[in-house]
Structures are given as C-alpha cells and as structure tokens.
C-alpha cells in the first residue's frame, strides 16, 4: 500500500485481499485510518472530502476481502469522508457486485452500483 502525497486523497491498495491475505492488509488499513484521523483533528488539517480507493493493484479478492473493504469504507465514512473505489478491474468489480458489497462504495472511474 502506498500513500500518494497529492490531493485529492486516494488510497492505493494492492496484493492479496482474500482470506489468506487480509491479516496482512489490516495493519496497513489501521495505520492509514489513524493517520487520516490525525490529519483531520490537527489544527489546519485537511477538510473531509472524497477518498478514492484505488483497486488496480489488488491481485486477489474474495468475500472476506470485500468485507474488509466494506469496513474500511464504513470507517472512512464515519470520519466524514466519502469513499469510492476507482480503477477497479472488471473481474474485481464483478466479485464486489456478486457478493453484494457494491452499495458500500461510490464507484469512480470504473462501473459499479451507487450506494
């Protein structure tokens, strides 16, 4: 996972987002959310806006990974940010749709159902 310094804010995800890989992804997500929270609470911090979750680098995704993505989206939303997924490969979008998780994300450049 890398954190692009530029705004608009985006979060680039990669690697294994299946049940076999989610345990490795969670600490990164937690660290990112903690950083985001700090930024928001600090003086002169960024204003909440749209957070693009970039899925281009995600190699594997299953229902368990979708659940973690949904959790991320909920957390981001609770902070006042509006999450969306972008650069979603077609096969991943299909997985998200099939498993019924698409309503958690506002889709960006790729297709997907509105929340």
């Amino acid at each position, binding site marked *: 996972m890398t954190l692009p310094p530029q705004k608009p804010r985006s979060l680039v995800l990669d690697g294994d987002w*299946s*049940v*076999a890989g*989610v*345990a490795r*992804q*969670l600490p990164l*997500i*937690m660290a990112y*959310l903690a950083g985001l929270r700090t930024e928001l609470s600090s003086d002169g911090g960024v204003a909440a806006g749209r957070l693009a979750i970039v899925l281009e680098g995600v190699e594997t995704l*299953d*229902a*368990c990974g*979708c*659940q*973690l993505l*949904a*959790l991320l989206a*909920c*957390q981001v939303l609770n902070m006042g940010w509006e999450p969306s997924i972008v650069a979603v490969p077609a*096969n991943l979008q*299909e*997985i998200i*749709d*099939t*498993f*019924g*998780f*698409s*309503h*958690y994300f506002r889709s960006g450049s790729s297709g997907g*159902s509105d929340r």
Partner: protein
Amino acid sequence: MDLARFSQTFFEECSEHLADIERILLGLDVHRPDGEELNALFRSAHTIKGSAGIFGFDDMTVVTHLLESLLDRIRGGELLLSPAMIDLFLQAKDTIAMQLGWHRDGKPVNQQAVEEVCSSLQQLAEQDLSSSPALGASSDGENSAAGRAGIYEIDFVPDLDLFLRGARMDYLFDELAQLGTFTAQAEVAELPAIEEFDPEECHTRWRLQLLASCMEREIRDVFEFVADEGQLQVRKLDSTDGSKFTALPVVPPLQPAGEALPFGRRAYDRNEAAPGAFGRRGSETESSIRVGVAKVDQLINQVGELVITQAMLRQMGDALDPVHFENLHRGLQQLERNTRDLQQSVMSIRLVPISIVFNRFPRLVRELAAKLGKQVELKLVGETTELDKGLVEKIADPLTHLVRNALDHALEVPEIRTAAGKAPTGTVTLQASQAGGRVVIDVIDDGAGLNREKILLKAAERGIAAVDTMTDDEVWQLIFAPGFSTAEAVTDISGRGVGMDVVQKNVQSLGGRVAIKSERGRGTTVTISLPLTLAILDGLSVGVGEERLIVPINAIIESFQPTDDNLRTVNSREVVHVRGEYIPILHLHRIFNLNGAVTDPRKGILMVIEVEGEKGAILVDSLQDELQIVIKSMEDNYRKVEGTSGATILGDGRVALILDVGALMQQAKMGRVTTGVGPDRKEARVYAG
C-alpha cells in the same frame, strides 16, 4: 496446496458414505420409502460428489452426479422407487467404490462396468416424466411449485468462522445461479472496534433474491454445508411477476467462461481440503477427530513400554523396606493405578463396533439368496459389541465364508423347508457378544444341519482317519481339514472346500477359536471366539524350570497340587481325576524342552485350563504373579514359536513366552503333544523348533 495431506480423510469419509448408501438402500421399503432415509441417501451421494470434485476425481463426480440427480428426483416424488432402481443404485455404489479404490490404492477400474452403470443411470434419468408420479402428489405440496418460476428471498447469517473453514462464497453463489437468476446484498453487521477486528472472521450477512423454478429444498441444499438450522431463512414471495425482483442488481455467475466447475464443486476454497472443509461442518468435527491408526498404535506401544517400566519399578520397590520407604511405595502404587487406567483408556481407542463388519452382510445375503432361489432373513444381534480394529478387519473374511456356506449349503430352498414343516424363509443370525475377556461371534442358521454320515464318507474318500465311533463334535472337526467339502456341486458361491480350513486358520491367527454345534434338520451354529484385543492380556506368570511362562487368566479354572489318588493313566495317557472328570496332563517342560523343571505332578502344581469346552491340566513348578502384560509379537522380533501366542517383558527385564493354551490343547488332542506316561526324554516334543 498439497491435497494429498487430506486425501486419506476424504477416502475414509467417502468409504463411510458409500457404506451408508448401501445400508440405507438395503433397508429401504421400496413401496413406502422413508423420506429421511431418502434425504440421507441424497446427502451421502451429494457429499461424495462434492468432495470428489474438490480432489479433482472427476470420474467419481460423473457417476455420483447421475446417482444424486436420480435420488433427488425420487425424494422429490418425481420418480417412483422400484426394486430395479435399488439394484442399479447398488451397482452405482459399487462403481464409485471401485473408482475410489483406483484413486486410493491404484486398483484397476473396469471401465466397461463404469460406462454401463452410467448409461443405465442416464436412461433412468431420461425416462419420460409423464410416466412418473404426479408432481403434485407430494403430501407437503411443495413439488407442485416445481416447474413454475417464483421469487425466493433468502437470508443467510453465517458463522463467524465461515471464511476460516474455507467456505467459498463464489462457488456457493455459482450453485445458486444454476438454480436461477439472483441478486445479493451484503450487510457487514455487529462489527467490533477496528482494533479488535479479526479480518478472517465473517461479520457479513446476506440477503438474496432468487428468481427460479426450483423447490425450496434445492436452495437449502446449496447452503447445506455452511448453514445450520436458523442461519438460513428461505421465504417464497407471493408475487411471481418479477416486480419484487428489481431491488437488487442482477449479477452473472462469477466463473469465467470456459472454466466450468466440475460437477458438485462446492463452496470451499483455499482450505478446501482442510479437515471439516468437505462433508462436515466445523461444529460436527468438534466432537471427534480422525487419527491415523499408526499414531494410535504408536501410542499403545509407548504406553506398553510405560507399563513395563512401571512393573520394573514396582519390582525394585518391593525389595525396599515398606516402613522406611512408605512414601515411595505409596507413589509406586499410585503409578500402577494411573498406568493401568491410562492403558485401558488408550486401548479403548482401538475398539470399534462389530457393526462395521456386520453391515456388509445384508447386501451379501440379499444377492446370494436371489442367486440361489432361497428366501433368507438375516438377523444381526449385538452389533454394538466392540473389539479391536485390527480384529474387525481380519474377521470379515472368515465371517463371509461362514455366511456364504450357511446360505449355499445349510439353508434349504423354500419347497424343501415347507415339506420339512419349516417356514419357507430360512434365518441366518449373526450374533456378537462379550464374554469375559473375549468376543464371541455366532453364525447361526436354521437349515438342514451337518450330515454326519456324509462327512464321514467324504473323510474316508479323502483318506482322513475317521471312524463311526467318533463323537459328533469330533466329526464336525473334520470339515476343517484342508480341501474338505461335502457340497454336491462346486458353485461360484462355495463348495470348493477352500472355506472352513481357511476360516479356522484365519481365526487362529487372531488368537481365536472356532467351534461348531449342529443338529440334523434344525441348523448349525459356528462360534468364533476372539480376544478382545491383540495388545494386552491378563496373565498369570508360572515358573517351569529356569523359565517363566505366562498363562492367560481367562483360560485358568483352578490350580492344585495332586496326590497319588488324583493321578491315573487312561489309554496310556496321564490324566488327573478332578470331581469326576479325567483331565489330560500337559507337561510344559516337555513341550518347550526346558531343563530343571519339576517332572512329577505330585511335586509341582497342576493348573486346570479350559478352552472352548476342552479341559487340560498343565504341570508347572510354581505360580508366581498375576500380571497385565503387553503382548509382543514373536514373529516380529524373533520367529514363530509353536504353542505360544507371543512374549512379554517382565518387570525384571526377562522375556516370558505367553502360552497359547488353545493351540496346546489342540496339539494334545491331535497327539502332537504327548500326554502319555513314560520317560521324559522319549516324550519330549519341542515346538520351539
């Protein structure tokens, strides 16, 4: 993933399901089949199919798919069960077992038989539905819904460990898509704080809508392995016009084109071969675990060594002053109790019910009876009797011989039975029970009984020494001679005379005995008596010369020092007179060629033993200790020593032979162990070779 690690579990589970299929098929009432049994049949076939698919055994999935489809139609009331179908399904079961044998042991598969069964199943499947019972005939009326599209709303609230168990939601949804068109909406609920969140746990629940022409049961089957009662709600919505079906986006199956799943691919993924990932849900596996027999045997062996060590310690402790070493003695006593408890617990792991063997006979009897034109009722009694797993496996063949013999030779055809005033249906009873430290299995038939004259005639023809004055019991023993058969004709069932001697040999190799009782016109009972386990024995150690020997406790009647009044010579045989009985004396020092032993019964001790109703008195120098001993194989560690069933290591580290009292008695009867009077040097007969 290395599936080979889990294949053994699959093979075992598959064998169990096949056994269940056979058992249920044979017990089904063709005219009024029990719905639960039909469901159980379907589930077994379904599980085999799914598991075989996971392991890539596509040949098995093809047959099981055909079988499962038919079973599904039968339980749904679309097809009427018939005796011919039972036969075909049994053939299909045999075919799957054959395929399993190929994958497990590399045994060859008869492809022609596979194709024939598949073709027959296919033909049955293609039967015109109009000739089948009306769909609406089902009592619950559910079948009437089949064929008409409807909308089902499905709420699925899985266990937290759904993902960890390896359940594959994409496969599950793909199966659902095969039923119709569906949409899904996931809700991530009841989440803990993110710091406490376990990402591998499933906190998601799904609501699905399915537009399909199927029965509710088919939907539930899709979730069979992932949802318990209460975790799945299926409701059929009133509206079938589709207006309620637009709330969620319609999604296609996930599987990429050209990568079709094998039949029965179930909802299990990367841990799809993990224990509990196929056939059983996690909660079901918690009550038991599968452990390899080799591991259990290793454990038993280690406990055996512990018992020997404990015996050594006790012997050392016995030499110490009980007052000064009171605490040590108390500790050693506690150790003995604990060791014995541990040994009993470990041994019980190997005990399995004899039903494992008995369950193969309904099929055998059914088919043989049909072949022979006889009416036979099989009764199974005492199926829960437990005995060592090793014994169970080895007793199957001898029992099969006996049952085949009973059907082929003993039971009469209905006309003859009726003429003899008997019921036209003959009975074969397999009866197991525990008696003392042994398991007794009776094979009882109510047939014609053994023909004494015919046996004597055949014996004379074969040059076997037999005279008219022999008792019935002695005559019955003749049928254990190699190649002995009184069958008029050799059939593919029996009659080649390769049965009873093999039965006796196999049973004896297990430390067992075979006895026969027969009454002309009323039937025959063949009794097999086996030790409960092959690994431990309660024995009494006796001294003979410099050696110590072990006599199994369960064979001992009494011990005493005889006087001149007790001792007699009958027909040149040395016997002891005990309460009206003349019991032959067996001189152990002669049998095992032992020096320095007591040779005069009046100066030693006679131990009366009894095996299968036969008594003998063995002469020993002294009685020493009652012990629970761990049996060590002589063949594995040295070589076979006639007259012994093994050896053990005593507390002082010495090796003691365990007497096979039955074999000694048998040898004495046959004259190979002399019981006659006379100088020891002439009568010495050494079996130790």
